[in-house]
């Protein structure tokens, strides 16, 4: 390794040195170099960076090691439709594709314009894929596609699983994207570039579940054009550290977005939902609802930002809600909702609450004969269920029953 590369990250830890070595092995490529330089400027994000104060990846990843266990099961396994699998940074493509869907393998790294704002996105843009194989995938949706397209990120005791997929949805086309982030790598990082053109629509359903010795980052950068509709629903159980970060820009008039999420964090699990929505055009709509439930030793984080610039952001209609349940003593939730509004003709609502289950409700249910742990599970399930309301029909039941299984299994909540 060249000396200048060794010192590219200040006070690098073992993981960062390993990432530098992986970068050095890849061919020269100005886009790769720009992305990696942006990552190297900070290294793995850490608590002294404002946007990462509660999610310290550098501290959580001292070494890049394969996890001990096997990846989690996929709740969407029974769904029909084409599947892209990502295993230890290798892309496995479906043999048949429905009409309206094209997938291209990109040999070189693609540009990543937001590299400075998203250090783990930049890292993934630089290192996605394997040497001599595809760096990333480009997916084009040219008409409404009936079957969901599934992306499964799952490795078998790998050190890293780094992948990047770009999706463009052409005018009037539609796609249902279903992602399962199942772990199996010391560091899993997925970067999604999503472009919706005029009048296009898409749903994104995201399931994440990692082990206590894994780090996972899921970063999405979404651009939405005139009258496009985008609806995202996530269910996350966390890992040793997990960051699910979504940046969405309404670029043209009348674009609509839904960003819903639920997190359920048991002991030793850390889930961070961070989002940044820019109302860069008039009369765009955002609805965001995040629900969380956390047990003793678990940690949930919500950082949400709405940015409504002067002039272009008029007639914005946006609402941000985050509500969390601390199911036990020792559960932790950190929330930072931010509204930055510079336009004057705007409707922007927000709400943020954090508390325990209602004792009156618990007593009422127990008086009817429902045991305490079951009453807690029922109330918690009812609490998070609202987050799945906007998911596609084929997914909402699966998300709810997956949440229910976790609540039923965690007798600790009694």
């Amino acid at each position: 390794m060249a000396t200048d590369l060794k010192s590219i990250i200040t006070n690098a830890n073992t993981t960062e040195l390993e990432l530098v070595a992986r970068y050095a092995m890849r061919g020269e490529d100005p886009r790769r170099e720009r992305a990696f330089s942006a990552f190297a400027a900070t290294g793995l994000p850490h608590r002294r960076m404002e946007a990462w104060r509660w999610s310290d990846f550098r501290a959580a990843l001292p070494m890049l090691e394969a996890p001990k266990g096997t990846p989690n099961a996929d709740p969407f396994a029974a769904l029909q439709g084409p599947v892209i699998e990502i295993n230890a940074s290798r892309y496995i493509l479906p043999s048949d594709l429905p009409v309206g869907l094209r997938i291209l393998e990109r040999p070189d790294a693609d540009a990543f314009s937001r590299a400075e704002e998203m250090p783990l996105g930049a890292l993934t843009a630089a290192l996605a894929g394997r040497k001599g194989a595809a760096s990333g995938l480009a997916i084009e949706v040219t008409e409404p596609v009936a079957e969901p397209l599934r992306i499964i990120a799952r490795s078998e005791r790998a050190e890293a699983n780094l992948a990047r997929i770009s999706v463009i949805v052409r005018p009037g086309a539609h796609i249902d994207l279903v992602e399962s982030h199942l772990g199996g790598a010391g560091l899993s990082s997925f970067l999604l570039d999503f472009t919706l053109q005029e009048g296009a629509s898409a749903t994104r359903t995201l399931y994440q579940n990692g082990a206590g010795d894994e780090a996972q980052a899921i970063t999405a950068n979404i651009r939405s054009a005139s009258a496009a509709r985008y609806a995202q629903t996530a269910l996350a159980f966390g890992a040793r550290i997990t960051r699910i970060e979504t940046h969405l820009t309404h670029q043209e008039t009348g674009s609509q977005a839904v960003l819903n999420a639920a997190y359920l964090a048991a002991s030793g699990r850390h889930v961070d939902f961070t989002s940044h929505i820019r109302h860069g055009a008039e009369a765009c709509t955002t609805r965001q609802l995040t629900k969380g439930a956390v047990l003793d030793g678990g940690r949930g984080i919500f950082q949400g930002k709405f940015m409504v610039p002067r002039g272009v952001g008029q007639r914005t209609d946006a609402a941000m809600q985050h509500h969390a349940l601390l199911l036990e003593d020792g559960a932790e939730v950190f929330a930072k909702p931010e509204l930055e509004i510079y336009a004057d003709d705007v409707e922007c609502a927000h709400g943020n609450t954090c508390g325990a289950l209602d004792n009156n409700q618990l007593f009422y249910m127990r008086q009817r004969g429902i045991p305490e742990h079951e009453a807690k599970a029922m109330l918690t399930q009812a609490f998070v269920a609202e987050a799945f309301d906007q998911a596609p029909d084929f997914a909402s039941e699966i998300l709810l029953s997956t949440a229910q299984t976790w609540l039923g299994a965690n007798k600790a909540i009694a």
Partner: protein
Amino acid sequence: MRPMLNLNDLHATVGEGDEAKPILKGLSLEVPAGEVHAIMGPNGAGKSTLSYVLTGREGYEVTSGSATLEGADILDMAPEARAAAGLFLSFQYPVEIPGVPVMTFVRTAMNAQRKARGEDEVSAPDFIKKAREIGGQLNLTADMLKRPLNVGFSGGEKKRLEIFQMMMLEPRFAILDETDSGLDIDALKTVAEGVNVLRAPERGMLVITHYQRLLDHIKPDKVHVLSAGRIVKTGGPELALRLEEEGYDGVIGEAA
């Protein structure tokens, strides 16, 4: 007749630590199977405290005395165990349970009680048939029973839902805490009919009320007057009428 509910010299406090306030001060009461007893008393007498002490609500501590249901000490049991043993409370202020439909809630409760007693679960068709029948008697539509429990229901509808749950769960012993409050005269009749349907030789009931009017429709076998944490007077249904005419001060003053 052997008493079904037996309360003996019950003392109880409300609140924690230094804040604990004695509310029940030596309450003794016997309700035999097959009888309906009414407890009447002024505000602050301890009526609601009694219902919460018997059902095991947190924050209500029994400091001495005993309470048994069919000979079993209920004070050591968790609230859900008391329910499985057959104790039901119709709440003065029914609690909203968002996201849990009435039918789901009652079926979960019924099966949890059955499981605790070592009985089989109720079958879905049997449950739905029974719910439709009882819902019909109480003017609760199938649509209402699909909505989340008590969410967006009027005060009268919530009270009818309490009676609906009682009729579905068929408890051995029911406590009705101010079930008449917030009811208009038609709703009061509907609720009373539901209660009267459940009168049975093997079942006991305790009706806690402020006013005589509920007792026009649910004829009690005995009326007890609760004042300052104790039963100060016991009589037949005529005692309720006297309370209505003379007020608590008159009747309690005479007892003291």
